[in-house]
């Protein structure tokens, strides 16, 4: 076995149980796609563009990016007004404290208020603030969401179980190759005096995409 394909079939390492979801069978793509992937990877390694170790470490990095990081950022913004001001005005600088580098893209943080609810889509592909939220959910990449989020956002939100009062404005942000959005959800009522760690438990991935609100204090027994 050569070092260039020593992890191509290590399925055991790729299956996880997340919050009671069943262990995922890890089906391989078409033979054609498998051949192309191995060919491209091996050629890039032979040409010295990447190494097998680079690929392994990059996979680790893909796996290490999860919405838990976004949740920490939101919780800090709720708790620390100075940080929040920096996050809203110069997110690059603010995110440095979390070891996050958004380059070459830019992150724009949009805040939900009593007057405005923000929601994020990428109609043209699947641009997403990966460094702070990880890999986008499948529905985010699908035609249904991409098509309708900009035309009938309230109907789409309802499909997520999210009802926005008529008097509240819904603002939809269409991401692109260079600019990504993160929603800063509203801090739930009844969380006065909570520390950031406890606040972060209220911040779901979907609340940072803007298809739902943060959890209520009572949802986590607060």
């Amino acid at each position: 076995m050569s070092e260039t394909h020593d992890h191509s079939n290590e399925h055991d390492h790729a299956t996880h149980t997340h919050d009671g979801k069943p262990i995922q069978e890890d089906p391989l793509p078409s033979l054609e796609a498998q051949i192309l992937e191995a060919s491209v990877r091996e050629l890039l390694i032979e040409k010295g563009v990447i190494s097998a170790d680079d690929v392994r470490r990059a996979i680790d990095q893909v796996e290490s990016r999860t919405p838990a990081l976004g949740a920490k950022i939101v919780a800090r913004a709720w708790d620390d007004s100075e940080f929040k001001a920096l996050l809203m005005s110069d997110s690059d600088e603010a995110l440095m404290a979390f070891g996050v580098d958004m380059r070459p893209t830019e992150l724009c943080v949009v805040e939900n208020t009593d007057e405005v609810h923000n929601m994020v889509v990428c109609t043209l592909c699947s641009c997403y603030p990966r460094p702070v939220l990880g890999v986008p959910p499948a529905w985010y990449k699908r035609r249904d969401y991409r098509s309708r989020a900009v035309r009938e956002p309230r109907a789409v939100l309802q499909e997520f179980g999210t009802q926005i009062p008529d008097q509240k404005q819904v603002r939809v942000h269409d991401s692109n190759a260079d600019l990504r959005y993160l929603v800063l959800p509203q801090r739930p009522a009844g969380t006065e005096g909570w520390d950031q760690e406890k606040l972060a438990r209220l911040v779901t991935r979907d609340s940072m995409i803007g298809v739902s609100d943060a959890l209520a204090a009572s949802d986590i027994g607060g």
Partner: protein
Amino acid sequence: MRGPQDYGGMPAGPVDPVKHEHVPTHWEKTVDAMMMLLFDQRRRLARVDESRRMQEALGEDYHKYPYYERWLQAISWLMLEKGVYTQEELEAKKAEVKARLESGNES
């Protein structure tokens, strides 16, 4: 004219946020990782808009490709376009990998 990727505002079916979740497979993560490496500040061999240009060049086939297979195709076309490897090198490598997979020596 609308490209195959230009969905915004078009009629479409309901979003099913429960059904349409997916934990990425190891194979998909490998493609993701390669794209990330080619995009990084050190290599700068590709950018998101270049990847999109290649994916959108699939035309109507855009819809036939699974998501990460579309990415993979884009990576390969970009590397050919940038002269990182040639079509001949790619064909030779594909034949070698195919023979290896078919002989069952890959696992």
